[in-house]
């Protein structure tokens, strides 16, 4: 992933065979469950059915129903139970079938998980991981296509992870499970089949460290989750015209590695931010503000944002594609900024 134009297969270093983002997550859970008896998995259809996206495949067989718990369809209830269990020192890894259903559990996540340590003066920890597949692109329409990174990263007390590669999916999930704070772990449904290298049982990816996915001096593109791949695709096209794009993946939104983002923008003088969520009060809006504060004097052009259209997701395939950020849109924004003076 570190070299320009690399297709993921070529980017894989020699060694273990590439695995899917889905399997990378399964490996992380399996390894952490083997390592720590306090870790358990809970959610709707995570056991016998092996998960709506098969991310928990094999776990019930291996660990039994004490540690792989199928719940009724009661998101607020089982998330709250997980939070209570975490207060008692267990390390629940909850699967919300999709981020869309997490809205039913929002009170538990925001009013309880995010607040316990603080409002009780540090007496209690809440070491819970709440996994939520999300994003659009499969014609699932208005209620099954959310990207709620902005909502969760708005909340102090939560940690928010947005992995884009199999390596990060595994390494960051392992870190999240070992973390003593509540973590919202946002997976992209569109990336489950994506293959790439992954680390071994001891390869953790730290929180708060962005990854530079491609080096380039003309414009910085900050992209989240699946949008990293959209940005890399745009970068390939731009390179054919001699425009070198630096693609940065923050990997975690809380904590945020502002330093790596700002260092890149100071070097290139330009920034495009790409997210799959809505534009109003979105992650891109926030990152743009942070980068203006940190890099205003270095900017050669206003920061640009590429977000989803400001509408509920339409069903019609052509409209859905029109609503989502595309490589062409990202490339267009980069060209616009690069054409606007400066280096």
């Amino acid at each position: 992933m570190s070299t320009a134009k690399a297709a993921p297969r070529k980017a894989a270093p020699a060694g273990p065979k590439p695995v899917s983002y889905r399997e990378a997550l399964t490996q992380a859970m399996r390894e952490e469950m083997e390592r720590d008896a306090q870790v358990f998995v809970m959610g709707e259809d995570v056991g016998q059915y092996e998960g709506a996206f098969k991310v928990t495949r094999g776990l019930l067989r291996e660990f039994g129903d004490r540690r792989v718990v199928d719940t009724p369809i009661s998101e607020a209830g089982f998330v709250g139970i997980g939070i209570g269990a975490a207060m008692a020192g267990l390390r629940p890894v909850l699967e919300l079938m999709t981020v869309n259903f997490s809205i039913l559990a929002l009170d538990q996540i925001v009013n309880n998980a995010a607040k316990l340590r603080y409002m009780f003066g540090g007496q209690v920890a809440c070491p819970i991981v709440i996994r939520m597949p999300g994003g659009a692109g499969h014609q699932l329409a208005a209620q099954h296509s959310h990207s709620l990174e902005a909502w969760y990263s708005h909340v102090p007390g939560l940690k928010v992870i947005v992995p884009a590669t199999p390596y990060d999916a595994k390494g960051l999930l392992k870190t999240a499970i070992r973390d003593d704070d509540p973590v919202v772990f946002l997976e992209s449904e569109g990336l489950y089949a994506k293959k790439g290298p992954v680390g071994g049982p001891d390869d953790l990816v730290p929180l708060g460290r962005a990854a530079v996915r491609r080096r380039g001096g003309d414009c910085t593109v900050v992209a989240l989750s699946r949008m990293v791949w959209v940005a890399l695709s745009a970068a390939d096209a731009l390179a054919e015209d001699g425009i070198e794009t630096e693609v940065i993946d923050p990997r975690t939104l809380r904590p945020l590695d502002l330093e790596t983002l700002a260092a890149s923008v100071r070097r290139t003088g330009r920034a495009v931010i790409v997210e799959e969520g809505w534009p109003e009060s979105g992650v891109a809006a926030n990152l743009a503000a942070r980068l203006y504060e940190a890099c205003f004097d270095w900017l050669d052009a206003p920061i640009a944002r590429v977000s989803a259209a400001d509408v509920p997701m339409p069903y019609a395939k052509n409209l859905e594609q029109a609503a989502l950020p595309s490589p062409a849109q990202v490339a267009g924004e980069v060209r616009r900024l690069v054409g606007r003076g400066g280096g």
Partner: protein
Amino acid sequence: MAKTRSPSARDAVTRPDAELMRGMFETMWLIRRFEERAAEEYMRGRIGGFLHLAIGEEAAVVGAITALRPTDPITSTYREHGQALARGSDPRAVMAELFGRRDGLCGGLGGSMHLMDKERHFYGGYGIVGGSIPLAVGLAFAIAYREEDSVALAMFGDGAVNQGVLAEVMNMAELWRLPVVFFVLNNQYGMGTAVERASAETDLFKRADAFDMPARQVDGMDVMAVHAAVTEAARLAREERQPSMIEAIAYRYRGHSMSDPDTTREGSEKERWQARDPLVTFERVLLGEGVVTREEADAVRAAAERAVEEAAGFAEESPEVPPEELARHLYADPWSDDPRGGAAMPPRKDGS
């Protein structure tokens, strides 16, 4: 009792001994005097925010908590000063928390609605009606997961019964046979709305029928009755992994909070309930059985007054919360001392 199974069969054998009864009496008076003093301090402006008083609910609180082992975890609502005191939290630390001072139970970060004393397995007061009940079930889940023999007690009010999340977690508690007791302290009003205006079935314990869970109603003004009911419910949970629900009928004498002018309730209604004040009726029982003398009862009240006086003095003397505490407890390892930059990592020293 409808078709509800009753956990009352063994009530007769669970009568507390004289020492425990004296202790219950002392705690009830401590709560009464503490709440009265808190109201005074609120009027003086030393306590901010919301202040919800449990005057009138002492029997329900003390009867339930004394029926448990000190290591059984409890969750409560925002009306939880009494729960903390009944669990043995230092009244000085509780009052200092209400004052928002450094020596408060939660270092001044929680306030009246968010008392918590982990050392005493009191898992806190919560401000969202019904929102804390799943946490108690989660504590019970952890007990079952670790194959321990504790019991979790979820205390909540009649208002919480109509929150959907209660049905969700009662279902899971029964489905998974978790060691938890759902304790509804029915004080007749969800803020200003009477139970009969909020619940289609006013016998709230019957909700348990839907989950095939045993449940019963008990006189929440009678500390002995509450103690007996919770003792049996705890036994069921501990020995048979059978969750249950108890509805204690009580009455809060004051409005919902200190800012509630309490205009919706009839004065005669309050007088009717105050005529069977739980402290007065319990004292009559104790005198009748020779557990305390009149002089000893007076001494209990005097001791409660002294403790509360001392608590208020301590809270007043306690320093303000240091400004550096603003973001200290946000995360296990805070990244930033600057709350504005709470989400950002501090500059790295290794230059990577």
